[in-house]
Structures are given as C-alpha cells and as structure tokens.
C-alpha cells in the first residue's frame, strides 16, 4: 500500500505545499489591508479594527482549501477572526485561543464550529484555554449536511453551506450590538433552519498528498460529498443538471421539511472547479423545483463560497428565513468575499 513519494506539484499555483497557507495569508493581507491583518505562528486572520469594545467577537476556522471560507469572511458585519488550518485539517487550539484573545471586546466571543470531530475537539481545547484566561466563550456547531445519517451514537452531520450564511447573519447581529446570549441563540436558530447537500464530478488534490483523493470515472458522480474529498452517500452515473438539482433540493426539502409558503434563502455553491455558468444552470433548476413546491426564494447566493480546492461539483443550501434572519442577512457587510451596503 505504501506509495512512492510524489514529487510533482500536480498543477497547482503554489511554491511548496508547506508554504501554501502562509503565502496565501500574506496575499490576503496585501490585497485586503483595509479590512484585515494577519498573524503567523499561530496563524490567524483578524479584522483590522479588532477588538471592538462591547461587540461580541465572532471567531471561526477550519482547514484551508475552502476559500473564501473563512478568512474571506473577516470584516465588518461578519467574522472578527478566522483560523486557517493546514489544507483540509482543522486548525489547532493555540490559533483559536489567540484569535479569541485578539477579538475579545469584553462582550464575549462566539466560536462558529463546523461539525467535524477534529474541529470540535480543537475548538473545545481552545475554549478551555480562553476561559482559563477569563474570556466568556460560547460555541455554535453547524451540522446542515443532509447527506449524512444523523444519530445520537455517531459524529452526526457535517457542517457545510449553512456556516457561511450563519457567519453573515450572526455577524450582522453582533455588529448591531446583540449580546453573547442573543448572538448564540440566533446562531442556533440559523443552523436549525438550514440544510445542505453537495455532489462532485471530480476529485480534489490535497497539495501535500500530490494526487487525487479519489478516482472517479468520466461518467460518474459522487452524491452527498463533503468538502474534503471524503466519499459521499453514493456513487452514481452522471445525470443532467436538472436531475442533479432535483435530487439535492428534494432531499433537503424533505429533511427539515420546508413547506409550501416558506420563504427561503437559496444558495448554490460551487466546489471550486465548476464554472459559474454551470452554477446558474443549477440555480435555475433549483428555482423551478422550489417554485413547484410552493417555496419562495426571497434571497439568493450563487458562487464559490465554501469550496473544496479544485473539485468540480456543487452544493445546494436552503435557509428558511424570518424577519430577523432576513434583516441581518441584508445588513451591511464588508469582507474580502462578501460585501454590500458599505
């Protein structure tokens, strides 16, 4: 089973796999000096004007390779700091502890954690460290991926697309002055009202590994894929965009379930290697399906927002909206990757 060391960089615009994350952080700092600053060892991307006195701090993090998540969401009205791990590997507690300290404006800090064993354990250790330093720290765990069977006895569902929406909405509330309890309650509500499912046409390539994570034939697709190249729910024959959109959307709709008359934010996300034109083809099919079900799209997001390196594929996320979540979705945001009304 042991593989010979692969020396090729497998067609990536990097210097070395080992320097990729820091090089990219330096690039972000150079491109967005008006919004963020970065620190190395431990690696943290911090909102330029953090900590903001009296504002609840929002910290997230996870493996790199999902850009713009999370570093691209640091800024006004969204995250106060993000901790980029190695590619597809959750960051370490010292990163989150530093991030927490850097953004704590005395009003407390909320950790936004995607439900992966590694992320949860590292964030837990970080919270223990931060609390040891006197910080008030809450955590919310996103687990919106309907492709994964949920159960009391398992690690449960993965956190995927809803994480982005949650960071925006909860970031809006925190910016507006909501306290730690209110922010935490809102975060849980967003997570409870959101569901996602993804699929892949091709594998991604983890730079250090230097080869595709999985092999997949030219006429196959992987349904229910996560964002780390981990296998999905099933491998099937490639289908049309309309069929794929219907499988993803109907599975999501039945899960919550979303009901006739519901207003939703519909989010069609690219995995990184799929052209935008195709994401709009999918959005069209999602819209048609939801219209048929009497579910109304009142907000939408289409693009590469939570990616899996160069994987081709997409995910669909629905978030049931109410007045509060709509208001904070619409609230001003100014980050490298999302910006409006400012």
């Amino acid at each position, binding site marked *: *089973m*042991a*593989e*010979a*060391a692969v020396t090729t960089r497998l067609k990536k615009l990097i210097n070395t796999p080992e320097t990729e994350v820091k090089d990219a952080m330096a690039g972000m700092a150079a491109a967005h000096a008006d919004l963020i600053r970065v620190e190395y060892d*431990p690696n943290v991307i911090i909102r330029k004007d953090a900590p903001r006195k009296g504002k609840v701090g929002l910290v997230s993090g996870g*493996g790199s390779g999902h850009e713009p998540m999370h570093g691209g969401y640091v800024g006004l009205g969204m995250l106060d700091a993000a901790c980029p*791990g*190695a*590619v*597809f*590997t*959750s*960051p*370490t*507690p*010292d990163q989150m502890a530093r991030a927490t300290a850097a953004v704590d404006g005395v009003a407390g800090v909320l950790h936004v954690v995607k439900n*992966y*064993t*590694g992320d949860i*354990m*590292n964030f*837990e*250790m970080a919270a223990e460290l931060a609390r040891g330093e006197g910080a008030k720290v809450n955590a919310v765990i996103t687990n919106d991926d309907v*492709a*994964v*069977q949920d159960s009391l*006895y*398992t*690690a449960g569902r*993965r956190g995927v697309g809803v994480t982005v929406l949650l960071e925006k909405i909860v970031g809006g509330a925190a910016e507006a002055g909501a306290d730690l309890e209110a922010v935490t309650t809102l975060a849980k509500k967003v997570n409870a009202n959101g569901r996602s499912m993804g699929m892949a046409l091709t594998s991604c390539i*983890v730079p*250090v*590994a230097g080869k595709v*994570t*999985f092999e997949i034939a030219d006429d196959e697709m992987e349904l229910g894929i*996560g964002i*780390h*190249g*981990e*296998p999905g*729910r099933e491998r099937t024959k490639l289908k049309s965009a309309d069929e794929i959109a219907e499988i993803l959307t109907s599975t999501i709709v039945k899960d919550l379930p979303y009901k006739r008359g519901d207003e939703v934010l519909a989010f069609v996300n690219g995995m990184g290697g799929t052209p935008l034109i195709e994401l709009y083809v999918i959005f069209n099919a999602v819209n048609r399906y939801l219209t048929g079900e009497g579910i109304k799209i009142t907000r939408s997001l289409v693009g590469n927002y939570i990616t899996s390196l160069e994987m081709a594929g997409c995910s669909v996320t629905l978030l049931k909206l109410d007045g509060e979540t709509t208001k904070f979705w619409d609230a001003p945001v100014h980050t490298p990757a999302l910006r409006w009304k400012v």
Partner: protein
Amino acid sequence: MAVTSAQIYGWLERYAGIVAEQKQYLTGLDAAIGDGDHGINMDRGFQTVLVKLAPVRDKDVGTLLKTTGMALVGSVGGAGGPLYGTFFLRAGAALDGKTEVSDRDLVGALEAGLKGVVERGKANPNDKTMVDALTPAVEQAKQALANGAPLEQALTAAADAAEKGMKATIPLKALKGRASYLGDRSIGHQDPGATSSYLMLRALSDSLATLPQRATTTTTTT
C-alpha cells in the same frame, strides 16, 4: 526494570521515524474512509515533536511526554491533534517530575492517556477509532503486569493486542470521526488512527526491548 528518560526519548524518536516512513500508508488508509491526511498530520506533528524535544531531552519523563503532547496539540490539528495531544499530556501528567519510571507507572501513564482520549473524543469501543487499538493494549499490559510478567513482555502483549484491535476495525462500521459520514461504506477498511496507535505501541515495545529489535515497519506495509 525502570524506564529512563533516555528510553522514552528513544521511543518518541523511533515513532517519529516510523510515522515519517508510513506517512503515505496512513494517508492512504485515511483517503479511503476519511480525508486523506492522517499520515501527513501525524508526520507534521512528530517532526514538530522532535524539534520541541531537543532542548528538553534530558528532562524528566513527564516533561518529555507533556512537551510531546503540547507539540502535537499545536501542530497536528484535525482529530489526531487533540486526541494524541491529550494522550501524551495526560500520560505526562501521570509521570510528572519522574526521571525513572516503574513498570506499573508506565502502564498507568498509558492508561491515563487512553482515559484522556476517551474523554476528549467520546468514542466507545467498536466505534472504529484509535480507541479500538489502545483499549485492548492497555488491558493486556495491565493484565501481564498483574500476572508478574516483565515490562518488556507486557508491552509486547500490548502491541500484539493493539495490532489485533487495529485489524478488528476492518469489518466495523465507523460511528465516530470523519469515517462515520460514510455509514456502511466505511465497512471493510482499516481505521487509520487505530493503525497509528498500533504503530506507536509497537515502537514502545521495540524501544524498551532488550531483545534484538523487531522490524517494526515491515508488518505494516502489507
């Protein structure tokens, strides 16, 4: 037989070498049912361990193990970081200040480490995790000592039990960690964390053996 700091250092160094050597193998196991980074993560961690151990290598066993734990927590990430980190932090705490460690103390430290892993990860036996290698290993080592066996024999029994536990993960369906997302598709694959745990215990047994050392790595490339 009392175990010295030098022997513990030798174990950690040996294990770091094995992880480096088995990086692709462990990563391949993880690609099948996880995200294909376990070997990469462990190797990044143990390379950091070597760096961090250098200035403290003459210190007590507790310091060596706690330094190892801190290095892992701060460099591995993923599930492996907190789990192996906790294992070594707890084991080190159990041996705080000791430069010579009794057989019973050493096995007790392993048990403390395992307890930490279970508290941190909340895995039950047969969830298809590293716990499935560590648990029978600690049990066998305790049993052997209780039966009056020398440490060397107890650790060989532990490594053998870990190997059995590792292989026993193959038919299991994963209930914890990333592999659990696969449901039934996780069946038929050996758990990467159980594999790295087995390698760790075999390295310990080989490090402390007075007999000619077993060729640790050849058993793992099949």
